[in-house]
C-alpha cells in the first residue's frame, strides 16, 4: 500500500501534543492550549504564509477546538483555504469548515459560491470534497443553489461521486423534504446502478422514504427480494465480502427495508419468506457480522406477516443468542425476544431462566434491556413480581433519566394491571418515595382520585378500608426524612380528607402531623398550601361533627405566620382557615361536606341567586349592568372577559390586570376531554374563584368551595387505569394468585407430558438452578397457559431443533418445582432419586448440545485465524493493565513481540524486531524509536504494541 502513516506535522505540533499529553491537570492543559491559541492567532494573520504552513495551522486549530477551546478567530482562514487551487489545501479547508461551521453560520455565504464551482470541477476529488461540505453546510435556503449540480452528479462516471451525490440528496431530503420531493424518483433509478456500492448507498434514502410512505414503494418488493437473493448467493464482487459474508451491510439494509414493506401485508410478505429462510440457513453464526444479519432477519420476521417456519427459525436463533456467553449476543437475544413475543407470546417461556440471568447480570445495559422485555410481557398475573423488581432496580440506580423512565413504567403497569387497591397504593408509595420528584404530577392526582373514588364498586366498606390503610401508611411514611414534594402533596390531601374519617386517629394528632409537615418543608409553598387546606378540612369536619375544636398552638402559629405570608395563595388559605374555624356547624357543613371530593358541584353561571339583590339595587337607583361586549370600545378584548362581568359591575373599578384567557378556557374543556383521557391536571383554583366570587356571598364560602374543589375532577366517568383492566379477574387473583397458578401449571404439565418432568427431575441437580431463581421464573412466566402445546410441536420439528425442545423443558418444569416449593409436597431429594435412572437416557440429549457448543469454539478460532478479528479481542484483553497508566503516547498497536520491551537496548532488538515484524518492519521500528526520542511516551518501558491489528 502506497500511503504512509508518517508524521506530516512539524515539531511544534508534536510538542504541543506532547505537552498536552503530559499535562497533569485540566488547568495545565488549558494553559498550554491558550498559549497555543495565542501563537496561532499571531501567526495565522501574518502575511504570505506558505500554504503548507497554513494547512498545519488550520489542523492545529481543529485540534484545539476538539479539546474544547474557541478557535473562531481562524474560521475565516479555513474558509479562505477552500478557495485555494491546490487540492491538498482545499481539502483541508473543507475539512476545517465542516468541523467548525454549522449550516446557519454567517460565513457560509462565502463558501456556497466555492462549493458551486467545485461541484463542477473536472477533478473528482474536488467534487467529492465539495459534496462532503454540501452535506454539512447547506441549509434549507441554500439547497436550491447547489441542487442542480448535485442532481447532475448522479450520472457522474465515477461511482464514488455518484454514491456521494445520492447521499447529499438524501441529506437534502432530511433537511427539507419539500425541496427535493420532485427528485425522489432518482433514488429508484439509482437502485439499478451497475455499481453495487452505489446501489447500497441508495438503500439509505429509500429506507427513509419507505419509513414515511410504505404504500408507494410496494412495487419494489420484488426488486429488493431479488437483490437480497443475489447478494446472499454471492453474486457481488469479492471486494464486498466482509469476514466471509457477502456484503452483510447491504443485506442488513435490505432486510430493514423488507421489514417495513412486509409489515401487515400478507402478499408482500409471501415474496420474502424464501429469501429470509435462506438467510437463516446460510448465515454464519460464529462471526459478529453473521449474527448481525441473523438479528436483522429476526426483526424482519417479527415485522412481516407471520410465517410459522420462519418464526421457528427465529426462535432457534434467539435461543442461540441467549445461550451465548457474549453479552452482546445476549443483549440482541433479549431485544429479539421482545420483538417476537408480540407474535408468539409463548416463546418466552423456554427462555425464562436465561432472561432471569440477564436480569441479574452486572451489565447495566443488558439489565435495562431485560426490564424493557419484562415491561412488554407484563400481565395481571406477573405484574407484582415485575413491578417489585423494577422498583428495586429503580432504588438502586442514580441515573435520573432512567429512573424517571422506569418510574413511569412502574406507574403505568401498576395502573394497568394492579391486582388490588392495596397493592396499588403500596406500589405508588414506593415509587413516590424513591422517585417522587421525577414522576409526573398527574400520577399523584390519579392516586388521590383513586383513593377518593375507591374501586368503583358498591362496596363502601372496602373503600373506607382502603382509605384507612392509606392514612395509616402515610402517617408511618411521614416519619421518614426528606420526602419528595409530590408525595407530600398526596399525603396532605389524603390526611385532610380521610385522616379522621374512621375515628382511629384524633383530629389533634392529624393536625399536629400536618403542622409538622408544613414546618419541615417550609420552603415548599405547594406542600404548605396542601397542608393548610388539609388542616381546614380536618377542623371543618370536627366542627360539623359538633365536637369542640381546640386549635393546637403550633397550628395557631402556623396560621399566623401564613396570614402574613408573601404568597397570596398561602395567605388566602390561611384567612380561609381562620374564617372556617369561626363558623357554626351548620354553615361549615354546607361549605365543607365530609368526603365530598367526588360530588359534582353545580356552577350557576348565570348567578340567578343574585337576582333578588340586583333587582333591589336597581330599584334603589343603581345602574343596570351592561355586558362588556355591548359597551363601546371594548369589543376586541371583551370575549374572554365575560367571566368577570359581575365583579366588574359591582366594583366599578378593576384593579387587577386582565387575566390570561387560559384558566377560563380550561374550566370549560375538562368535562369534555376527561371522558377520553383519564389523566387530567387538577383545575387550578383561580378560575373557580373567578366564576364563583360574588359580592353577596362571603368570601369564606366561595373560597372554601374552591379549595374543596381543587381536587375535584368534574365529569370524571372513568376510574383509574386503562380500559384493558378488568377488575373482576384481578380481585380474585390477588389473593390466591400464585398458588392457583402454580397448581394449574403442575397439573397441566404433568398430565400432558410426564416425560418432560422426569427429564427435568433428573437434570435438575446438574443444572443447579437456585430455588429463588426458579420461583422468580415461575412467577414471571407462570401466568401464561399455553404450555401444553409446545412439546408436541417441538417434537415434530427436525433433528436440529430437538435439543432445543429438550432444553425448553427445563425452564418449564422448573415452574413446577417452584410451584411445588410454595406448597412443599415433594422434597427435592425425592425428585433426585426418582430421576436417577433416567439420567443416563437423558445424557445423550445433553451431550450433543455441549458438543455443539464445543464445536462452535474451534470454528470460531478457525475463522478467527482467517479473519484475524478475534485476535484483536485477545490482544486487547491481554494488554497488561499497565498500559492504562501510561500517557497518551502509548501505541495502540505495533509490535507484539515481547522482546520489544528492552527496546532502549539497541541493535539486538532491531534484529529480533525484523524477524518478527510484518511486511515493513523497519518503518514501524523507526516510528517507534522516534516516538521514544521525542519523549512523547514518557515511560521507559516499551509501549505494549500489538502487531497486526488486522494483518
Amino acid at each position, binding site marked *: 500500500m502506497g500511503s504512509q502513516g508518517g508524521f506530516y506535522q512539524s515539531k511544534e505540533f508534536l510538542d504541543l501534543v506532547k505537552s498536552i499529553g503530559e499535562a497533569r491537570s485540566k488547568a495545565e492543559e488549558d494553559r498550554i492550549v491558550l498559549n497555543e491559541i495565542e501563537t496561532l492567532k499571531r501567526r495565522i494573520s501574518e502575511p504570505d504564509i506558505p500554504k503548507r504552513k497554513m494547512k498545519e495551522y488550520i489542523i492545529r486549530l481543529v485540534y484545539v477546538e476538539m479539546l474544547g477551546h474557541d478557535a473562531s478567530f481562524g474560521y475565516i482562514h479555513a474558509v479562505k483555504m477552500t478557495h485555494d487551487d491546490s487540492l491538498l489545501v482545499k481539502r483541508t479547508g473543507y475539512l476545517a469548515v465542516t468541523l467548525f461551521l454549522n449550516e446557519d453560520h454567517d460565513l457560509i455565504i462565502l463558501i456556497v459560491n466555492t462549493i458551486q464551482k467545485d461541484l463542477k470541477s473536472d477533478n473528482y476529488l474536488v467534487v467529492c470534497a465539495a459534496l462532503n461540505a454540501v452535506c454539512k453546510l447547506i441549509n434549507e435556503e441554500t439547497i436550491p443553489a447547489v441542487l442542480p449540480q448535485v442532481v447532475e452528479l448522479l450520472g457522474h462516471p465515477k461511482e464514488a461521486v455518484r454514491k456521494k451525490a445520492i447521499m447529499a440528496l438524501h441529506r437534502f431530503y432530511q433537511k427539507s423534504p419539500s425541496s427535493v420531493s420532485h427528485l425522489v424518483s432518482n433514488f429508484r433509478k439509482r437502485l439499478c446502478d451497475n455499481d453495487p456500492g452505489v446501489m447500497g448507498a441508495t438503500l439509505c434514502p429509500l429506507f427513509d422514504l419507505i419509513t414515511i410512505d410504505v404504500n408507494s414503494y410496494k412495487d419494489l418488493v420484488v426488486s429488493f427480494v431479488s437483490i437480497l437473493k443475489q447478494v446472499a448467493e454471492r453474486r457481488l464482487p469479492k471486494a464486498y465480502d466482509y469476514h466471509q459474508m457477502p456484503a452483510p451491510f447491504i443485506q442488513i439494509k435490505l432486510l430493514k427495508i423488507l421489514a417495513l414493506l412486509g409489515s401487515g401485508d400478507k402478499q408482500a410478505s409471501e415474496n420474502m419468506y424464501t429469501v429470509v429462510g435462506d438467510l437463516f440457513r446460510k448465515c454464519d453464526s460464529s462471526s459478529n457480522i453473521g449474527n448481525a444479519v441473523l438479528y436483522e432477519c429476526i426483526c424482519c420476521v417479527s415485522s412481516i406477516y407471520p410465517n410459522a417456519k420462519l418464526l421457528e427459525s427465529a426462535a432457534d436463533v434467539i435461543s442461540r443468542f441467549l445461550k451465548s456467553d457474549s*453479552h452482546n449476543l445476549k443483549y440482541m437475544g433479549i431485544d429479539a425476544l421482545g420483538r417476537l413475543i408480540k407474535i408468539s407470546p409463548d416463546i418466552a417461556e423456554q427462555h425464562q431462566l436465561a432472561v432471569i440471568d440477564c436480569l441479574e447480570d452486572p451489565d447495566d445495559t443488558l439489565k435495562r434491556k431485560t426490564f424493557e422485555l419484562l415491561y412488554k410481557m407484563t400481565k395481571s398475573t406477573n405484574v407484582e413480581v415485575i413491578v417489585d423488581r423494577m422498583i428495586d432496580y429503580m432504588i438502586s440506580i442514580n441515573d435520573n433519566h432512567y429512573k424517571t423512565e422506569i418510574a413511569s413504567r412502574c406507574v403505568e403497569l401498576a395502573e394497568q394491571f394492579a391486582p388490588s387497591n392495596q397493592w396499588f397504593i403500596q406500589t405508588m408509595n414506593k415509587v413516590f418515595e424513591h422517585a417522587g420528584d421525577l414522576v409526573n404530577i398527574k400520577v399523584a392526582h390519579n392516586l388521590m382520585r383513586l383513593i377518593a373514588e375507591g374501586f368503583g364498586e358498591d362496596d363502601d366498606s372496602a373503600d373506607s378500608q382502603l382509605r384507612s390503610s392509606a392514612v395509616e401508611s402515610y402517617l408511618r411514611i411521614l416519619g421518614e426524612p426528606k420526602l419528595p414534594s409530590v408525595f407530600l402533596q398526596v399525603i396532605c390531601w389524603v390526611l385532610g380528607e380521610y385522616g379522621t374519617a374512621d375515628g382511629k386517629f384524633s383530629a389533634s394528632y392529624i393536625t399536629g402531623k400536618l403542622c409538622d409537615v408544613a414546618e419541615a418543608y417550609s420552603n415548599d409553598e405547594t406542600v404548605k398550601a396542601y397542608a393548610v387546606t388539609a388542616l381546614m378540612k380536618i377542623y371543618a369536619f370536627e366542627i360539623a361533627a359538633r365536637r369542640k375544636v381546640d386549635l393546637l398552638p403550633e397550628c395557631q402559629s402556623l396560621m399566623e405566620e401564613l396570614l402574613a405570608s408573601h404568597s397570596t395563595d398561602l395567605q388566602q388559605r390561611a384567612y380561609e382557615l381562620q374564617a372556617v374555624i369561626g363558623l357554626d356547624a351548620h354553615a361549615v357543613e354546607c361549605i365543607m361536606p365530609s368526603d365530598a371530593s367526588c360530588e359534582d358541584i353545580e356552577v350557576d353561571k348565570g348567578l340567578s341567586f343574585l337576582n333578588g339583590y340586583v333587582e333591589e339595587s336597581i330599584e334603589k337607583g343603581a345602574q343596570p349592568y351592561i355586558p362588556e361586549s355591548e359597551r363601546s370600545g371594548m369589543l376586541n378584548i371583551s370575549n374572554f372577559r365575560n367571566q368577570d362581568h359581575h365583579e366588574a359591575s359591582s366594583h366599578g373599578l378593576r384593579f387587577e390586570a386582565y387575566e390570561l384567557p387560559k384558566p377560563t378556557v380550561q374550566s370549560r374543556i375538562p368535562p369534555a376531554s376527561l371522558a377520553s383521557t383519564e389523566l387530567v391536571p387538577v383545575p387550578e383554583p383561580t378560575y373557580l374563584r373567578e366564576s364563583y366570587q360574588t359580592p353577596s356571598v362571603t368570601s369564606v364560602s366561595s373560597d372554601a368551595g374552591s379549595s374543596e374543589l381543587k381536587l375535584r375532577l368534574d365529569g370524571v366517568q372513568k376510574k383509574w387505569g386503562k380500559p384493558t383492566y378488568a377488575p373482576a379477574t384481578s380481585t380474585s387473583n390477588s389473593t390466591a394468585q400464585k398458588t392457583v397458578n402454580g397448581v394449574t401449571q403442575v397439573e397441566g404439565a404433568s398430565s400432558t407430558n410426564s416425560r418432560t418432568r422426569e427429564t427435568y427431575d433428573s437434570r435438575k441437580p446438574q443444572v443447579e438452578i437456585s430455588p429463588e431463581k426458579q420461583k422468580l421464573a415461575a412467577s414471571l412466566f407462570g401466568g401464561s397457559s399455553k404450555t401444553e402445546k409446545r412439546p408436541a410441536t417441538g417434537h415434530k420439528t427436525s433433528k436440529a431443533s430437538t435439543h432445543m425442545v429438550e432444553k425448553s423443558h427445563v425452564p418449564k418444569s422448573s415452574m413446577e418445582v417452584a410451584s411445588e416449593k410454595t406448597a412443599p409436597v415433594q422434597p427435592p431429594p425425592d425428585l433426585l432419586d426418582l430421576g436417577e435412572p433416567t439420567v443416563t437416557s437423558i445424557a445423550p440429549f445433553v451431550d450433543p448440545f455441549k458438543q455443539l457448543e464445543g464445536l462452535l469454539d474451534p470454528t470460531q478460532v478457525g475463522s478467527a485465524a482467517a479473519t484475524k478479528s478475534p485476535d484483536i479481542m485477545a490482544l486487547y484483553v491481554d494488554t497488561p493493565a499497565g498500559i492504562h497508566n501510561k500517557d*497518551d503516547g502509548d501505541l495502540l498497536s505495533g509490535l507484539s513481540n515481547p522482546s520489544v520491551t528492552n527496546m532502549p537496548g539497541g541493535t539486538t532488538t532491531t534484529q529480533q524486531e525484523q524477524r518478527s515484524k510484518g511486511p515493513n518492519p523497519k518503518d*514501524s521500528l523507526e516510528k517507534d524509536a522516534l516516538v521514544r526520542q521525542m519523549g512523547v511516551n514518557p515511560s521507559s518501558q516499551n509501549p505494549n504494541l500489538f502487531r497486526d491489528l488486522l494483518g
Partner: protein
Amino acid sequence: MIKAVMVMNTQGKPRLAKFYEYLPVEKQQELIRSVFAVLCSRAENVSNFIEAESIFGPDSRLVYKHFATLYFVFVFDSSENELAVLDLIQVFVETLDKCFKNVCELDIVFNYSKMHTILDEIIFGGQVLETSSTEVMKAVEEISKLEAASNAITLIPKSASGWRSR
C-alpha cells in the same frame, strides 16, 4: 443515521470527534465527557452497547469498542443495527491499520486530517457509505496521490523516518 463518531483515549482525551448534526463546541465537550464517564465505569467483559438516551436524547444508541488505549465510540439511532455498527468500528480500525501499518494512538493524533479523510469515506453525512476497507483504502490512496500531485510544494516529509532524517 449515525449521529456521532468519537475516538478518545482511556484518559478521556478526545482524539477525534465528529458530529453529524451540528452542535456547539461546549455541547460537544459535554457529550464527550459524559460518554467517557459512562465508558470508564463499564466493567470488562460486558456488552459493547450502552443506552445513550440520557446523554444524546431519545432514540439514540451507543456502541463502543476498546482497543488498547483507545475507545472508539459510535452513536446512532434505531435505523442501524448494533452488531453491524460494531463491525463498522472494526472496518474503521482495519482501515486505519492498513493505512498506518500497525496503527497506534500517535498515528491518530498526528494524522488528524487523514483520520477524517478515512472516516469521510466510510460515513458520509451520517449514513454508512462504504463498508469494505479495501475500497476505502483505494479511495484514500487515490486522494493522497492526487493531493501530492496537485501540491506543488512537496516539502512535507512522507514518513516518520523522513522527518527524523531532516
